[in-house]
């Protein structure tokens, strides 16, 4: 009997040691895991990917990353403010790599900006001057550079960036650009009406910009559409903004005028060809501003008064027509 008792005790001891050994292993594993901090594990949302837009001949290089307003900085750092101030909702990124060459990879940045206006704003204010349109691409706001493709799709701003300049990657970027609206089921959004308010004559194609805030360095100028014109061979920036009513348009006119005067602008004498207008010389640049019904508009940084005046008259006539509608 004592030997049976001893057997039971031995068995219990063995089981106890096994349990303690397992617990020690768990503790060690927790300690090791907590010592290794991989930021990516705590900032990405896993599960989905953008493989539906991936071109043939490529494979997924990394898992998709998702960033929200809190974490956007961890992807684009100092540029985050530009997006956060423009209605940013989230960013999805993913890289694809060529199956033939590991050095050839491409990264998609899919910014959900919440609306076509917001998306157009971040697109237009970052647009590279050397960008070329692609005739086969149907979405209106797009351009391609040597290694990248940029466009607006519904409420999304999309960047497709290749690791190097290469024909294979350039072709891949175009395929991805075509796939994104269809495969991700993003509906086109053509609700930006302001484009029709700009005269076509002398307009520099593709030069539209939308400043949601702080247009021309003044925080009182919001929702300002601008476009470049060539008038008498001079570059002229024409801008306009639809406000809620005539009172608001007049108020912005007054506040922007006051801002310019306080900052050193000087009135241009005998300038009264437009009702409710002001013209100033701002350190050698001509600024003309006026209100027309619920519209506020003008000319920015013109080099001479003659071309500025011509452009202002054209704009005024367009806005008069718009007010009648």
């Amino acid at each position, binding site marked *: 009997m004592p030997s049976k008792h001893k057997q039971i005790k031995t068995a219990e001891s063995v089981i106890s040691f096994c349990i303690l050994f397992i617990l020690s292993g768990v503790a060690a594993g927790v300690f090791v895991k907590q010592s290794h901090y991989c930021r990516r594990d705590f900032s990405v949302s896993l599960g989905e990917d953008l493989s539906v837009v991936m071109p043939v001949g490529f494979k997924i290089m*990394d898992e998709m990353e998702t960033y929200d307003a809190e974490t956007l900085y961890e992807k*684009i750092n*100092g540029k985050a403010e530009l997006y956060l101030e423009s209605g940013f909702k989230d960013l999805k990124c993913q890289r694809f790599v060529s199956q033939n060459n590991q050095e050839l990879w491409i990264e998609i940045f899919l910014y959900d900006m919440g609306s076509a206006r917001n998306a157009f704003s971040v697109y237009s204010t970052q647009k590279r001057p050397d960008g070329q349109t692609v005739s086969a691409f149907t979405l209106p706001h797009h351009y391609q550079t040597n290694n990248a493709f940029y466009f607006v799709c519904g409420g999304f701003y999309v960047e497709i960036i290749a*690791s190097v300049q290469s024909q294979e990657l350039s072709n891949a970027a175009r395929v991805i650009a075509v796939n994104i609206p269809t495969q991700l089921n993003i509906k086109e959004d053509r609700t930006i009406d302001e484009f029709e308010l700009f005269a076509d004559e002398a307009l520099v194609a593709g030069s539209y910009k939308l400043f949601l805030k702080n247009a021309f360095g003044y925080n009182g100028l919001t929702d300002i559409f601008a476009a470049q014109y060539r008038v008498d061979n001079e570059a002229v920036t024409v801008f306009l903004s639809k406000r809620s009513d005539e009172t608001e348009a007049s108020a912005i006119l007054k506040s922007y005028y006051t801002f310019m005067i306080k900052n050193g602008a000087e009135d241009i004498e005998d300038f009264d060809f437009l009702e409710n207008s002001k013209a100033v010389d701002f350190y050698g640049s001509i600024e003309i501003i006026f209100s027309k019904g619920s519209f506020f508009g003008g000319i920015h940084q013109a080099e001479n008064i003659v071309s500025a005046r011509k452009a202002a008259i054209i704009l005024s006539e367009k806005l008069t027509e718009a007010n009648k509608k």
Partner: protein
Amino acid sequence: MKQNLTRREFVLRTVKAGVSVAAAAGISYLLYDGTGPTLESFKKESVALSDFSITPIDGQVISIVEGADRVETVRKAIDLLGGIERFIKPGEKVLIKPNAAFARSAGIGATTNPELLGEVVRLCYARGRAGQVVVTDNPINDPEGCFHLTGIGKAASLAGAKVIMPKQNYFSPTTLKKGRLIKDWPILFEPFKDVDKVIGIAPVKNHHRSGASMTIKNWYGLLGGRRNIFHQDINTIISELAMLVRPTLVILDGTEVMMTNGPTGGSLSDLRRRNTMIASCDAVAADSYGATLLDMKSADLPYLAKAEAAGAGIVDYSSLKPLMAQIAG
């Protein structure tokens, strides 16, 4: 006869079991981290970075070399200042801080060029006869991805440097005397232990927030925590970084400059070839010259004046009599 458990034995076994369970639970409690890893959740002694600068020599503070080949221009730029031997003594441990902030390919110009980094590491070993060179950064994006995709990790390793990834326990709090923002803030300190000399290598870039990102902004990559809050006062934080880090040498790569859409860039058309390499013992002077490559004046970068006022360097680089050279081809 059936063996029965006595009351005494039962109590003893129960106590032993209870002690075992309590011990396991206690160890688990000590190791448990309910909040997850954050760079703020540590208690360490405050640290201070040493001053790694060397004795100044009048007329050998800043050099500017024009040329298309980074390897050639950086060699020349350092030689004009007295050669790497002036900065690195045999057996010394050197820390190189590149800009590896983003997981971008080298050609995008958002990060330190890997060829340039590799050459500086080689110079440290071959001519400086350094005992060890380490390369580190705390990137904005995932560190492994950044060091890999930028080519910096590979270039550093091939040249013989040890790449040190940022780990949570490598950060320690620091407070800058007379600083307003850097107070009890985590910095990547562990790689600096036993380091004798520090070299910063940064590209010239436009920056959406600060106007430019060059050698002083490069030290942002030593900050831990939620450092993005400093963007609200970007010029002050950059000037404080100039006071926090006193490097041995900075190298500012203006070969291909990111003129717009910084700091991340993306399109090759954001870059303009300027074919200029700057080596300097004075980071403020280096950045001041770098501003010209961005078609800016030093007055366009308020952090420069703040840094100068704090004694971190000289904005008027011309007063330091820069040494100039041109490399053909």
